[in-house]
Structures are given as structure tokens and as C-alpha cells.
């Protein structure tokens, strides 16, 4: 079964600094998608970024970018110029084969003013 591991239960970053959240996954599939979702205290899960496994180029969305290492099965999220509004739980998720989204247990990010 596919698994997603987020090894950092909590992280903190100074405002305007850069932080990287780690995610590793286990799969035997070759075609799959990876996602980072943000969940603020409002509970709403918000898509941050997605990556198709067949694409070698790392996805980027404004201040958010990923480092996708397919061979290592690693999918880290980098947040640049951190803002107070970035404080939230961040979930890494995997979708491959016939399995709906499999989520990691999340990383709680605090942003220090």
C-alpha cells in the first residue's frame, strides 16, 4: 500500500525567511500525482501546489515551490518570504493507481513575526 511520511510534526520560521517541509512516499506506481495542501484553523483544505510524476520540472506557485526527487521518492515544499498567513497545517498527499488521495500526518508551521 502507498504511504506518505512527513517526518516533521512541527516547524517554525521567521517572517520573510524560507522554510522547507519534508515529505517522502512509497509506491511501485510510475504514474502518480503529488500534492501539498494547507489547512488553516478554519479547517478548509486549500491546494498549495501539485506535481505530476512524469514531469521532471519542479512545480512552482508564486512563493511556493517543490523539490521533486522521483528516484528518492521525495517531495519537499519550500516556502519563500514566509508570511504570517502561511501559518497552518501542511499536508503532503499522493494519488496513484486506483487509490484516492493518501495523506501524510501533516506538519504544523508557525510563522514568527
Amino acid at each position, binding site marked *: 500500500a502507498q504511504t506518505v511520511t512527513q517526518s516533521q510534526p512541527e516547524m517554525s520560521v521567521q517572517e520573510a525567511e524560507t522554510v522547507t517541509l519534508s515529505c517522502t512516499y512509497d509506491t511501485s506506481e510510475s504514474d*502518480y500525482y503529488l*500534492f501539498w495542501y494547507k489547512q488553516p484553523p478554519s*479547517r*478548509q*483544505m486549500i*491546494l498549495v501546489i501539485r506535481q505530476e510524476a512524469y514531469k521532471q520540472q519542479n512545480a512552482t506557485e508564486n512563493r511556493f515551490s517543490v523539490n521533486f526527487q522521483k528516484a528518492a521518492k521525495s517531495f519537499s515544499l519550500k516556502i519563500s518570504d514566509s508570511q504570517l498567513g502561511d501559518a497552518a497545517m501542511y499536508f503532503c498527499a499522493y494519488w*496513484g493507481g486506483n487509490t484516492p*488521495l493518501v495523506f501524510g500526518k*501533516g506538519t504544523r508551521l508557525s510563522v514568527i513575526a
Partner: protein
Amino acid sequence: GAGVSQSPSNKVTEKGKDVELRCDPISGHTALYWYRQSLGQGLEFLIYFQGNSAPDKSGLPSDRFSAERTGGSVSTLTIQRTQQEDSAVYLCASSLRYRKETQYFGPGTRLLVL
């Protein structure tokens, strides 16, 4: 258009009572998903629908849980004879099709069983 909506936002019930949780997906989305998020935990997949059909119900925790979807739109998750361990946030998501596509989530229903 509007995003995924869920109702009620919060529900407090007594052990042994039945509850119904509702999800309105994004218009035109054929796939709909239910997840459960227990305190401090990640998301646990419960069930998904393609149109009105639920091909895989193995994620439902027990036979007290059931779900239906009508008209390819609204879905209801029903929990019968609620137990305290059912307390959690129940999240619904939808996607355009059941493929490796982005799922858009609703705000969730927080269920508390006393």
C-alpha cells in the same frame, strides 16, 4: 462558481443517535469524496462516488456508516448509533473526474458525540 459546501458546520449529538452530514460539490464535478480527520491526525479516506455510484466502500469504518449521492450532486454521509470514537471532522471533496486530479475540499463538519 461556488466551492464545496458542507452542512452543518458543527454537530453535537448524544451517543446512540443517528446523524446526517451533507455535502454539496462544485457544480459539474462528477467525483465526490468523504474523509475523516480525527484530532491531531491526518485524513482517513472513507468513500468516493463516481456519479451516483460508490465503487469501493471498504474505507467505511463500520456498518454504522453509509453514504449516498443523488442526481450526481449532493451527498449524505449517515452515521447510525453514534459512538464517542466517531467524534472527528468530516471533510468532503470533489473533483472534475475520478482521475489523478485536484480535489477541492469543503470546510468540513465537526462532529462531537457526547
